Structures are given as structure tokens and as C-alpha cells.
């Protein structure tokens, strides 16, 4: 295993239960130290650790022998190898690249298309770079990874639709009100999910929160948490029209809001739209409310069906994303392979340049015998340019063949090209030596010149 190799080792939500993942979890504060420790493992040349609630992955560029990453996890986290072994996966080279691209593009996430993972990979990269664990190998790979993730986001709709109830409620509110800046939210009942939805709405700019709950203390606590106002449950119908978004989640056995209430609200609001999110079971809002012009009502089933439809949409987009990743892995592999061509090309160019210089010296000697006047600088520059141009033109197809062989990973062909050239060089060198001997007496034999040109 040489420099430029890649090894990815870890566990994720598919391979390991949460009990194991939490034992391996690394906090942001510890990440730098753990990465530094990983770098100390014999055989590790470059390293990075991605640690999230769903995965712990060690990405390593090995230096010589394969490093003992299982031993590192055993030692560092004090997790027995027999416990860990059935749950870890290991990817090498091309497979490791593919896995990393899939992780950063959120195709390997629990919720496919969630946007946080790219930020987490970037954070891992920043930390690894800050402790000196990232050099040219990982640098190139990670820059490619970020570009691929960006491409997947731009060219597919994988993250285009929400799949959680709270974020769907926010999306719908934005489809009604545009910006949620200065929008007022009324929480009727204080359920966990309504609280979560309200939190999402506040994050998107909703300004005022009103809370009404049959248990007054709970309403006060919730209002304090959001910096909102408590409304007495008895004042529900006189105050509800002040809110643009009403989230209901009471335990009431009967419906609280009827279409008649809706008509009154719309009249008082001068037809400004209202959005009812009814996440109570049994429902708090009469389904007929949705028929009132300007009022939009979504109950828990509606939200869940939107979530299901969005998940189906994401699955379709994921197929397209997989195709993009496949292409990008191929492209990255070609980039890596093309690096193998560099020394061969350099060697070839140096050898040919040596031949050219030798030929020039010979030509200079011959010219001196033909003319008493030496070549001027301008004439000599023209000869230089001519020979260099010819050399480049002759070399061009060979260089292209070398690059193509390297990009395809065809090491046999690459070696063949190299050896062919070495032979040529050897022929040239021996021929040149004999020529030098002849040249001192007479003109060079014609067949030798033609062999060199061929």
C-alpha cells in the first residue's frame, strides 16, 4: 500500500446499534485530540475523523503497511474487539472514495438528503487540517468531496422537500405567507410536537408567540421559553384572529374551532389568510374549516401524507444522485491515475531533451566545418526553436498515449511505453557513442540518422 492509498474504517447507523455508537462518539471538543492520536498510529500518513450521532468513521491515507485501526478504536474507546468487529466496515481505494462521496452528499444518512452532514464533514476536515493531519492526499480528496456534494445538491432535488412534520408545517406556512418575518403564532395546547413546530417557525422569523392551555402553569412556562404571551383559554375565540398561524394540540374530545369561528376570524382579519395546523388526535379543528376562503387547514394525517410523498420524491432523486456519484468516483480515479503518468512523462522529456542537446552540439560542429562564419544568436535561436518544436510534435502522440494509459489505470501499457522508451534511449546512447567516434573522422552514416528519427 503506497502513498495515495485510502482506507475508510468505521460504524454507522446501519451497521451498529446506538449503544455501540454512543460509546464511540467523539465530541467536537475532543475531535482534534483524537485525530492527533490517530495520526500517531504506525502506518497512518494522513487522517480525518467524521463523528456524528449516526456514524464514527476514520479516513486514513496509509503510509506503507496497513495501520491497525481496529486496535486504535479498541484502545482509545476501550471497546472490546469482539464487540466491535461484527459492526465495523472497511472500504479501500475506490470504494472508500465512493463511500465518502455518498456520506457527504447525504445518501448514506438516516434521513436521506438532510443538509447537516456536509457541514459535519467540513468541520471534521477543518479540525484535521488544524492538527496537521491533512496533506496533499486528503486535501485533494476532500475538495473533490465537497464539490461532489455541492453538485448533488444543485443538480438534484434531494434536499428540496422536507420530510419531518415540523419542517413541513414551516414549508407550508412559507407557501402561504412568503416570509415568516413578523408573523404571529398561536399555540393552543402545549404538546411536544406543537412546541417543536413553533420552534421551527421562530427560527424562520416568526416574531410573536401566544400560548393558551387549559393548564395555566404549562402555558406560562411555554410562553416564557419563547418570550411569548399567555392567553386565557376562555379568550381563545376573541384572540385567535390576531395570529396568522394557529397550532392546536389539545386533548379535547370535541372540536374547538368550527367553520363559523373561521368566518368570524376572516371577517375581523379583513381576509388576511390564516393557517391552522391541527396535530391533535382527536382533532381540534373541524375539517370543514378548510372550506372557508382564506383559511388553510392541515391535520396530522395531511402532514404525514406530505412527508411520505416527499420521502418518495427524495428516493427518486437519490437514484439520480447515485449516478452522479458513480461518474464523480470514476473522474476522481482518473485524476489519481493520471498522477502516475507524471514521472514517466518527465523521464521521457528529459531523455529526449538530452538527445536534442547532443544533436545540436553535433550539428554545431558540422556547421563550423562548412562555414567560416559562426551562426549568429538569432540564427541559433531559430535552430533551437525548430528542434524544440519538432521534438514536441514527435512526442505529442506518445505523451497522449501515456496519459490515456495512466487515466485508464493500464499499468501494463504504461510500463510498456516506459520500457520502449528506455530501450530507445539505450539505443541512442550506444549509437551516439559510436557516432562520436566516427564523427571525429568523417560524416555520420545515414542509417543511424534514420534510426534516431524513427
Amino acid at each position: 500500500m503506497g502513498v495515495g492509498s485510502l482506507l475508510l474504517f468505521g460504524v454507522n447507523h446501519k451497521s451498529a446499534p446506538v449503544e455501540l455508537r454512543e460509546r464511540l462518539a467523539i465530541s467536537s471538543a475532543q475531535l482534534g485530540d483524537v485525530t492527533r492520536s490517530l495520526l500517531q498510529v504506525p502506518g497512518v500518513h494522513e487522517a480525518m475523523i467524521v463523528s456524528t450521532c449516526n456514524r464514527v468513521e476514520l479516513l486514513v491515507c496509509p503510509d506503507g503497511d496497513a495501520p491497525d485501526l481496529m486496535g486504535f478504536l479498541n484502545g482509545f474507546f476501550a471497546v472490546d474487539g469482539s464487540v466491535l468487529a461484527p459492526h465495523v466496515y472497511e472500504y479501500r481505494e475506490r470504494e472508500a472514495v465512493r463511500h465518502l462521496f455518498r456520506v457527504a452528499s447525504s445518501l448514506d444518512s438516516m434521513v436521506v438528503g438532510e443538509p447537516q452532514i456536509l457541514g459535519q464533514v467540513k468541520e471534521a476536515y477543518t479540525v484535521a487540517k488544524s492538527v496537521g493531519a491533512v496533506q496533499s492526499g486528503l486535501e485533494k480528496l476532500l475538495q473533490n468531496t465537497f464539490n461532489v456534494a455541492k453538485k448533488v445538491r444543485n443538480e438534484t432535488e434531494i434536499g428540496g422537500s422536507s420530510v419531518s412534520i415540523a419542517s413541513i408545517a414551516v414549508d407550508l406556512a412559507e407557501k402561504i405567507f412568503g416570509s415568516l418575518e413578523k408573523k404571529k403564532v398561536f399555540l393552543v395546547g402545549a404538546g411536544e410536537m406543537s412546541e417543536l413546530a413553533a420552534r421551527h417557525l421562530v427560527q424562520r422569523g416568526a416574531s410573536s408567540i401566544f400560548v393558551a392551555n387549559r393548564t395555566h402553569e404549562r402555558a406560562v412556562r411555554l410562553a416564557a421559553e419563547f418570550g411569548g404571551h399567555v392567553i386565557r383559554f376562555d379568550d381563545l375565540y376573541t384572540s385567535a384572529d390576531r395570529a396568522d398561524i394557529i397550532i392546536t394540540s389539545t386533548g379535547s374530545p370535541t372540536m374547538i374551532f368550527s367553520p363559523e369561528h373561521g368566518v368570524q376570524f376572516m371577517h375581523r382579519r379583513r381576509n388576511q389568510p390564516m393557517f391552522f395546523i391541527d396535530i391533535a388526535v382527536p382533532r381540534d379543528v373541524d375539517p370543514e374549516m378548510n372550506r372557508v376562503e382564506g383559511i388553510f387547514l392541515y391535520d396530522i394525517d395531511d402532514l404525514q401524507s406530505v412527508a411520505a410523498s416527499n420521502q418518495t420524491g427524495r428516493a427518486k432523486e437519490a437514484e439520480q444522485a447515485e449516478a452522479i456519484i458513480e461518474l464523480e468516483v470514476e473522474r476522481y480515479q482518473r485524476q489519481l491515475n493520471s498522477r502516475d503518468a507524471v514521472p514517466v512523462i518527465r523521464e521521457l522529456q528529459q531523455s529526449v531533451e538530452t538527445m536534442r542537446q547532443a544533436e545540436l552540439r553535433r550539428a554545431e560542429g558540422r556547421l563550423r566545418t562548412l562555414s567560416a562564419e559562426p551562426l549568429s544568436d538569432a540564427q541559433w535561436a531559430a535552430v533551437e526553436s525548430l528542434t524544440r518544436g519538432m521534438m514536441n510534435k514527435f512526442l505529442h502522440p506518445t505523451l497522449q498515449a501515456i496519459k490515456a494509459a495512466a487515466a485508464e489505470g493500464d499499468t501494463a501499457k504504461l510500463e510498456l511505453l516506459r520500457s520502449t522508451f528506455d530501450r530507445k534511449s539505450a539505443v541512442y546512447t550506444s549509437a551516439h557513442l559510436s557516432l562520436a567516434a566516427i564523427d571525429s573522422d568523417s560524416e555520420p552514416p545515414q542509417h543511424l540518422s534514420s534510426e534516431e528519427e524513427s
Partner: protein
Amino acid sequence: MFLLWLRVAAVCYGIATVCALPAVLYCRRRWVKVFLPAAMAGFLFHFVSIAELLSEAHRWMPVGTREMQSLLALLIVGAFLLIWLRYRTVSFGMFALPLAFLLVLFPAIGLERYTFSSPLVRGGWIIVHVCALLAAYAALIFSLLASFLYLLQEKRLKDRERPSFLTWLPPLETMNQIGQRALVIGFHCMTVGLLIGSLLAQESVGPAYFRDPKVVLSFGMWLLYIGMLLVRRTTGLRGRRAVYWSSLVFLVMLSVWAANIFSSVHRFSVP
């Protein structure tokens, strides 16, 4: 040369029209990157073309159906670009650019040659009159469009159906604002246009101006416009009823346009 610029503008509008579908319907950013520059380039070339045409002809007023079409197309694209600048929504481009492309198509083939019997067309005020009224028409088209889109989006949200081909629709509030502001701008433009037209006609035609069918219909449209604005403002009219009002005013607008055939006041040239 102006014809060349107009043709370049038509090509740009054509490109923007082709890009509008994937850019708007499928929210493809790559297409938006072509769509918007094409629309902007088209607008610039179009503006240069009209300015050069008027400057070459030594008159301020576009005359004839094709020149009017061209100016209306310019105003529609201008209105779309303003909406994009203000609301960052390209949805309206799906309608504005194909409309502009169609409007510009015939003028780009060739404009009619006119000789002018009236010196009035060389006055600066007449272009203000014409542009203001055309801007009012463009604003009304956008307002009607916004009302229709509002209705579609409202139905989509009410029915809880999420057909993927309608995900591009802008939020209800955005469309309401666009519709409302277009109406207000259109009303001001129409008032200015009619006022200047009346004053100019008083000088050149006299009281006969007010018996002209186009003029009578224009004032009728202005009154309807006021009615619609008042109703919208006092009741917060939206949705279906807003579409009815806008459609009514739009129909009157079409009849005003058609009334050119019967108008004696609006004839300045012989083709």
C-alpha cells in the same frame, strides 16, 4: 441597425423562453443562470432598438401595431425584471418572456414604413401619454396573472394535493403583493396617460375627443380600475373574486385596444 438589435433581442427572448420551463417548473438553477441573463440582454437590446428607431425617425412616438407591440413587450419584460429584483421570483418569467417573444416576433421581421401628417407625433408629451398607457396595460396583465396564480396556489394548498408540476408557484402573499402593487402602479400610469392625452387632444382635436369610442372606453376602464382598487383595499379582496375583477378590467382593456379601428383621434399616419 435598430432592426438588427430588435432581432438580437428576439433571439435573447427566445432563449429565455426555452430556458423558462426548466428554470421555473423544475427549479433548475443551471437554467436560471441562462434564463435571467438572456432576459436581461434581450431587454437591453430591445431598449437600444426602440431608442435608435425613434431617434432615426426623428419622432418620439412609436406608431403602428408592430411598434406598439414592440414597446409593450419591452414594458412587460421590464415589469418582470422589476418583480424579479423585488421578490426574487422567476415564476412570472414563464409567462412574461414567451409573451414578449411573441409580441416581438412580427416587429423583428420588419416594421411598417409610415409617413406622418401630424406634427403632434414629434412632441415629447405624446410618448409620455403612450408609454404611460402601455405601462398601465402591462401592469394590468401582471396583476391578472398574479391573481390567476394566486388562485392556483390557493387551490393546491386547500386540496393538499402536491402535483410536482406546480411546486414552482410563488407564495400566496408574494402573489397578492405583486397583484396589488401592479394595480396601484398601473392606476397611476393610466391616470397620467389619460390626463396628458386629454390635454393634448383638447389643443389639437377639441371637444370631439371625448366622443371618440377609444377615449370613452379608456375612461370606463379607468373608473373600473378605481372601483377594483377601492374594493381590494377596503375588503382585502383576494382569490376568486380578485380574479373576476381583474378579468373584467382586462376585457375592457382588450376592447380599448380593439377600439383603435374605430378611433378617429388616434390616427396620425398613413402606412
